[in-house]
């Protein structure tokens, strides 16, 4: 999930989510970056409205699963 978190750091800060930017964030965290996953992420995000995806998740019926103890 760290790739998506990195993308969301950027998105939340109003930055463009590019291969370079994501790689930079991950590298700064001391993570060995796999180019292919960064590429896959950027490709997958093409045309995706991150704001909307976040909003949809928030609107989801969270009710369900009270995580069992």
């Amino acid at each position, binding site marked *: *999930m760290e790739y998506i978190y990195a993308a969301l750091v950027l998105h939340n800060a109003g930055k463009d989510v590019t291969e370079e930017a994501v790689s930079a964030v991950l590298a700064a965290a001391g993570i060995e970056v796999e180019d292919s996953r960064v590429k*896959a992420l950027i490709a997958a*995000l093409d045309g995706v409205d991150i704001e909307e995806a976040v909003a949809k*998740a928030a609107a989801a019926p*969270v009710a369900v699963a009270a995580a069992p103890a």
Partner: protein
Amino acid sequence: MALYTTNLPQWKQDEVEQIVSYSGEYALTGLVDLHGIPAKQMQEMRRDLQGKAVLHMTRNTLVEHAFTAMGAPIDGITSYIDGHSALIYTNDNPFQLYRKLQQTMTKMAARPGDIAPEDIVVEKGPTSFKPGPIVGTFQQAGLPAAIEGGKVVIRERKVFVKAGEEINAKQAEVLSKLDIRPIDVGLSLQVAFYDGTFFEPSTLAIDETEYYNNVVLAAQQAFNLAVFAAYPTAQTIVPIITKAAGEARSLGVEAAIYTSDIVELIIGRASLQAKALKGMTE
């Protein structure tokens, strides 16, 4: 007895022969109890059975003659005969006949001397009666009746006649006034002789709901098995594909495999996690 038969008048001999010939003609020979069936209902029931079964009423002595003449094992049927028996013939199997006869049962008002087939209960609450001598009638019969708000009410729920007890005249009157019809009236099967065997009602009672539930269960099991084993049929292929697609999406989200179909899900998940964490830091 068989010897004695030959001395019967012709019409009786004909009657005996009729009984014997019916038993040869139909797969099932049975006895039904006609006790307490009013003529009107009797006619309706005969009509209901038309084409499915033959109901034959005759003198018990002639029935005994006939079966004794037929010999073992069918002569065993004579031990089931009572004062209100009639013969029934059908090609249905005994379970089917029993079921059909059950369906002809209706509820009737009780007459003095009837036996309560089950606990007869009078519920607590208001009745439709205005105050009057009826309160006394109820009370004498043992009902906790009283007058409240200008109406006759039953003060508490009461088992009025216990199952198996005889219903006396007073009780019958009260039940009729309250429009409670406790008596099952219909052709009740006493015994069926079929395929060399006697079937009694206790064996023949079928819980249809259970069969229905079992058919549903069987269908569910078959469906589950087919989907689980990914055995494709016209009925199961769509659920199987849906299941496969769901599994792939689940794997994609769990493993954070970034593809366009599910990236929104992964984003959603990440954002929820961030929110949850934020919530714990505030």
